């Protein structure tokens, strides 16, 4: 691997780890190196708070990631120690900063997700790339959105994008991207016990529910008579309302979706506060998708494969009770290079995590 710091090759380092996750605005890196002030480029990288630009290339000069250094750690010992310098992709700053005050108001009227995002990226010199698969959603005009002053720029953008089933991530050039994994695309790799060092199934049932309900307060435009649903509005006393306990009134908008993978009763309810136009059913489907991230397969390879987050990967492993070949989405990767070896690890999740479709059983 080759590393450039502020445009100058940085030649001497011990170990590099780069981790990427599908629905985060930044990959992270960590590099171990010894500081030598006489070597060009060292002062730029080893000066805390320099926020130096760190670009990673493969041995074949192929761009891997465009990062910014944000953390410096070293211990002062008798023997000069190694510095650990870590950082994240250029859009990572969006997860550290709130909307600057000179860009207020926080309210946006009749703007698209693309317009809102591009405006917020401009002061940071970041660019937005919208993939064709979500172009329609990103260009839809949103009647009104309001950011919270204390929330990060990333959280604000993601909260709108998530509700439109758009994934916000980043590319190797340091751009923010909006896309959705193309689950119909051709698999990039097939993982089997034979071509992996390890494959680990990790299913956390505590955060997976059978009935997922979302609700939000009524829109002020709702028909007043519809709000009462089937209840008898000609009540003579407040006690009469007891007869209607347990009913779902239309005073709020609610939707419930099932997760057919969960055969026992495990309900959850979430309140929506964002986007008054937002469809509660869509939100419930997205919530189910998020919960499906708790079904994952972690793998380790003794090589780097030309795969990246969002790719479709085929898996078969009878030891994990996956006897048939199933397609999964590559949710995260970590590549590691040290003097001795190159390794790659990753995590796979169900396709339905990002489509909102009803999840299919992969076991058996």
């Amino acid at each position: 691997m080759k590393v450039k710091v502020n445009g100058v090759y940085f030649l001497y380092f011990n170990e590099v780890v780069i981790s990427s996750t599908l629905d985060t605005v930044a990959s992270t890196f960590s590099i171990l190196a010894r500081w030598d002030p006489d070597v060009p480029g060292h002062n730029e990288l080893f000066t805390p708070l320099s926020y130096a630009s760190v670009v990673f290339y493969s041995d074949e000069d192929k761009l891997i990631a465009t990062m910014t250094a944000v953390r410096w750690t070293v211990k002062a010992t008798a023997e000069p120690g190694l510095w650990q310098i870590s950082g994240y992709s250029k859009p990572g700053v969006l997860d550290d900063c709130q909307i600057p005050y000179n860009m207020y108001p926080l309210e946006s009227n009749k703007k698209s997700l693309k317009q809102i995002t591009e405006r917020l990226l401009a002061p940071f010199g970041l660019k937005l790339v919208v993939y064709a698969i979500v172009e329609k959603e990103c260009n839809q005009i949103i009647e009104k959105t309001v950011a919270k002053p204390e929330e990060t720029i990333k959280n604000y953008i993601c909260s709108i994008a998530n509700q439109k089933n758009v994934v916000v991530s980043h590319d190797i050039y340091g751009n923010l991207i909006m896309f959705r994994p193309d689950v119909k695309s051709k698999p990039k790799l097939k993982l089997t016990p034979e071509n992996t060092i390890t494959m680990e199934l990790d299913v956390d049932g505590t955060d997976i529910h059978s009935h997922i309900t979302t609700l939000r307060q009524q829109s002020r435009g709702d028909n007043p008579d519809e709000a009462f649903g089937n209840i008898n509005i000609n009540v003579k006393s407040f006690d009469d309302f007891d007869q209607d306990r347990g009913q779902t009134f239309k005073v709020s908008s609610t939707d419930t979706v099932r997760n057919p993978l969960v055969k026992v009763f495990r309900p959850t309810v979430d309140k929506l506060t964002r986007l008054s136009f937002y469809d509660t059913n869509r939100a419930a489907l997205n919530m189910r998708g998020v919960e499906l991230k708790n079904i994952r397969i972690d793998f380790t390879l003794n090589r780097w494969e030309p795969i990246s987050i969002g790719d479709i990967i085929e898996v078969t492993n009878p030891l994990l009770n996956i006897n048939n070949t199933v397609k999964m989405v590559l949710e995260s990767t970590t590549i590691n290079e040290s003097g001795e070896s190159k390794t790659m690890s990753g995590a796979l999740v169900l396709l339905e995590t990002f489509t909102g479709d009803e999840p299919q059983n992969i076991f058996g």
Partner: protein
Amino acid sequence: MITLSKYFSSLIDTTGRRLLKVLGLYGAATADNCAPFGDDSCPVKGMDAIYSTTGSDELPIVIGYINFNQVAAAGEKRLFSLKRVDNEDGSVTYVESFYTWHKNDGTYELGGNVDNSVRYSPLNSALVSQKNDINNELTKIQAALSSLGGTYARAPIAIDISDAKIEEIKTL
């Protein structure tokens, strides 16, 4: 969260609701006007409005205003209208245009306290009584003229102010 804001302008949407534009802590914002039942009022530009979020981030409301012209005493209720006047020197004044005042002494002022309102029934009785008195006098005049050999065709005076009675508005 509830914050103070400055009222800027408003419009009425197709459903008859008043939509406000205010300048607040987080810049310009639009909010629905919230008022007691049946209250239809529009503030003047520059008033301090109480801006509040609700369960939907996109549906904030203005729940009230910090009013000028507060003169009512304990137990009293006063309603008033204001007119904003932009003076030539750039200053702004708010002129009270009209008021109604439920006072704690049992009186009610309608725009002022110089003159008095009139009750219909006593007025009607007084006018009928006066009419009767005049007619009586005319009868006497007619009799006097006849005794002197003259003639006077008396035409009784009638009065009817019932059309002036506002049935829809009652008072004590």
